[in-house]
């Protein structure tokens, strides 16, 4: 069964000043799937994920051609970039909770988008923390600083924070690379659970992680999308020699 595309990338080229970081990327990212981007460092996978919510806008000298469609609408056209980022949430490599209380971290997003009612905020915070599988651990310390949480808890808090504005898509840029195996397992479990309600794009250095959780995998090398397809297929019968070499650990 062919899935509905959440994102359609058409001939995406991206430059950082003179350096071309992405070359002619064409891909469809299906809704309610987990799509993994793999590849060696500097291959452009993080750059691409940051293009999906236009976080690259913040980088000076970044230029992009081609088009990226979200639900068949260009994200570079007549669109409010803040609304785009509300729809396309992001979790970063290093947990980056705000230096404020657990509650305020999660309430920040909804408050930004105009929700003032204390009752509504309480509701959203609880639901987001539950969805991020961290409610039980923090429900008694909502007023405590988020920085007092462990790294794994901080990352799940960041996921809760991303969920608080009810996005359609969750972009995760190596979300477990700074975490221990137990925290990693918790987050992987969570990501699989979130698939029902969100489209998830995850960048990972960890190929086991890609096989464990993703439905689709894209292999990137030197700014090109070398191979893209069903995860089982990519990892069992890769078509491209470079992709095979990478996943069998011959380089990278």
């Amino acid at each position: 069964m062919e899935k509905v595309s959440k994102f359609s990338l058409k001939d995406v080229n991206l430059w950082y000043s003179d350096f071309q970081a992405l070359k002619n990327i064409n891909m469809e990212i299906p809704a309610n799937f987990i799509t993994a981007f793999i590849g060696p460092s500097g291959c452009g996978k993080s750059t691409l994920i940051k293009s999906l919510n236009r976080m690259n806008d913040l980088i000076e000298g970044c230029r992009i051609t081609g088009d990226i469609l979200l639900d068949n609408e260009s994200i570079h056209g007549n669109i409010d970039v803040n609304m785009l980022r509300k729809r396309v949430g992001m979790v970063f490599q290093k947990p980056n909770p705000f230096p404020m209380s657990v509650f305020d971290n999660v309430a920040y997003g909804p408050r930004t988008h105009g929700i003032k009612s204390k009752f509504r905020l309480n509701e959203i915070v609880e639901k987001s923390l539950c969805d991020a599988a961290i409610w039980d651990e923090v429900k008694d310390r909502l007023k405590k600083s988020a920085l007092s949480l462990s790294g794994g808890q901080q990352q799940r808090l960041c996921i809760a924070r991303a969920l608080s504005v009810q996005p359609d898509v969750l972009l995760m840029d190596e979300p477990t690379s700074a975490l221990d195996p137990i925290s990693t397992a918790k987050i992987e479990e969570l990501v699989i659970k979130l698939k029902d309600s969100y489209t998830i794009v995850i960048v990972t250095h960890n190929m086991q992680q890609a096989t464990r959780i993703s439905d689709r995998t894209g292999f990137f090398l030197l700014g090109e999308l070398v191979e893209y397809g069903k995860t089982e297929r990519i990892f069992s019968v890769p078509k491209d020699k470079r992709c095979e070499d990478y996943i069998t650990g011959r380089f990278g």
Partner: protein
Amino acid sequence: MGIRSLISLIRRNKERIAKHLFALSASAAIAAVGLICVFLFMQGLPAMWDIGIFNFLTGTDWQPDWTPPRFGILPMIVGSLYVTAGAILFGVPTGIFAAVFMAKFCPAPLYKILKPAINLLAGIPSVVYGYFGMVVLVPFVRENFGGNGNSILTASILLGMMILPTIITISESAIRAVPGEIYDGAVALGASHEHATFRVILPAAKSGVMASVILGIGRAVGETMAVRMVAGNQAVLRMPHEFIRGVRTLTANIVLELGYAYPGDHRPALIATGVVLFVFVMLINTLFAILKKKEGV
């Protein structure tokens, strides 16, 4: 011992000599603070005792030429508090907004002009500020608010300007020290640049900003020359609504009268004024230290 062997002796013991030199320099600084402390208290405390600490601190008459003289410094304590509060009122919001602008909104070409300008502001001698106050602010206040222009308001505006560089420079570096990831996290939630800056970055830089404010207050409390040039210097207890009338600060009190102190308690009373000022500054520094500790710097 020849000059050559002396040189070689120094060369061989370079490290040790340097160490002692550094230790000596450090002790000089500590000794200076210690000596100031000792002499100030030695000369000031007996006078306070003589006058009566309560009379001294809460007396509203400062009349050194009366018989018997009166040494009440409440007008000056209150005066210092007024102009400091005024300086905070004018200087703190302006300084913090300027720092936010410099760190998060300022276009690069403008920054190249603004930054050295603010550094220059920090280096201007206070007598020059005082002169500016006399020729610009005093007439301005006189014409727009009444009175003769030498007033609490004038001193407050001038001090507010003088504490700007301290507040801007330290707040700006505190804002810049907030990790970029924090900003990215806010923007990725759909927050605008302004929202992320004022609701996430500025609160995250809170303790640094507070530190800048406290250092600014320290500067305002201790400022002497500029204040005495525009404040009017009447040793009269003022009420807050009398902000267009003159006031005398603790610092001005010392500098105005120390040169021709009457025999008896006058001179010690002025030194005791210094003790009170010293205690104020110490309180401010302690507050600063506590904040820094909280920050974990």
